[in-house]
């Protein structure tokens, strides 16, 4: 019980830190926000339930007005902005990422990558694109067009989520809870 609560809280903090840390190069020379990488890692490392709860806690604290989103944004205004769908989709994305990693029982890196693609891209975009369409007054195909430029970065992040998760499993086997 205590361990679950602290893991959930610490990973919620980790998502915030990955959004606030300024200068990590995800691809050489192109610094992009690692926040959605944090969401993927919550699922692939903590597993579906704990991962989703960690992300839910994070979203909840953003709503309460803590400046935890990338660039120090936060507060209820975020939920009226164009990224509202993505933020609501975050916990679902982590859940699916974790679920895939839990179910696929060969190796760590590949399942985590697949989970991150399915959760962090397919599921997340399924929430994010309608949200963007609603706020920006666009049709769904038009909103898809607006989301397209982020796809390449997110595929890279999914790859990194796989590498990082398998890296952690290598250094500290048994600590990757989605394998528990």
């Amino acid at each position, binding site marked *: 019980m205590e361990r679950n609560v602290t893991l959930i809280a*610490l990973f919620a903090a980790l998502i915030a830190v990955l959004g606030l840390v300024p200068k990590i*190069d995800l691809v050489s020379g192109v610094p992009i926000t690692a926040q959605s990488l944090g969401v993927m890692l919550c699922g692939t490392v903590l597993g579906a339930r704990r991962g989703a709860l960690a992300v839910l806690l994070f979203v909840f604290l953003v709503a309460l007005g803590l*400046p935890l989103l990338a660039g120090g944004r936060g507060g209820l*205004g975020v939920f009226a*902005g164009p990224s509202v769908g993505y933020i609501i989709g975050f916990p679902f994305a982590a859940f699916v990422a974790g679920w895939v990693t839990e179910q696929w029982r060969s190796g760590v890196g590949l399942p985590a990558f697949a989970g991150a693609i399915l959760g962090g891209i397919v599921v997340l975009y399924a929430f994010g694109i309608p949200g963007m369409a609603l706020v920006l007054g666009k049709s769904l195909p038009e909103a898809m067009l607006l989301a397209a430029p982020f796809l390449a970065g997110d595929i890279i992040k999914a790859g990194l989520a796989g590498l990082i998760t398998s890296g*952690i499993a290598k250094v500290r086997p048994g600590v990757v809870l989605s394998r528990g």
Partner: protein
Amino acid sequence: MLTLTSPIETWLHRVPAGVKLAGLALATLVIVPMTNLYWIAVAAGLVTALYLTQGAAFARTGARRLWPLWPVLAVLAVWHVVTGDLMAGVGIALRMLTAIALANLVTMTTRLDDLIAVVERAARPLARIGLSPRTLAVAIALVIRFTPVLLLRAGQLMEAWRARSPRRPGWQVVVPLTLTALDDAERVAEALRARGGL
């Protein structure tokens, strides 16, 4: 850690948090479906007036909070210039800014502990499915405490990287950072158990 609450005390700070949240929910429901530019302009005017009654310095801070939206506005502008219906674009942009500004206003005038109190009250029925308000409060406190701790750790990891490499810190630092979060969670859980648990 800093919150987004404005340090400038205004009359809106004294309105109970629950009332402000209910008002915001209601107003957002009205604003979001609006398509008539005239009514959107009226809503935007009302929100601007609400900001101005909080004082000029407060209103300036509020305006600055909208600044990060400029890329979205730029995309909207290009889009609607290309499609030729500029007025529709103005309406959409104004509607979005109005809804965000109103929500920001609640965030700026409500203290974190007041919001947490509302949450605890709202979460009371959840105790029946096993989530006690106390557990939620501990989790919130842990995130608030450990975000700066992990941020510091991330800074140290990146410094260590720079000491060894001419290149900028890469994604590899996320591995030890995540390990830190896992290890700290174990230790904090032990400490909580040692003090009687949750």
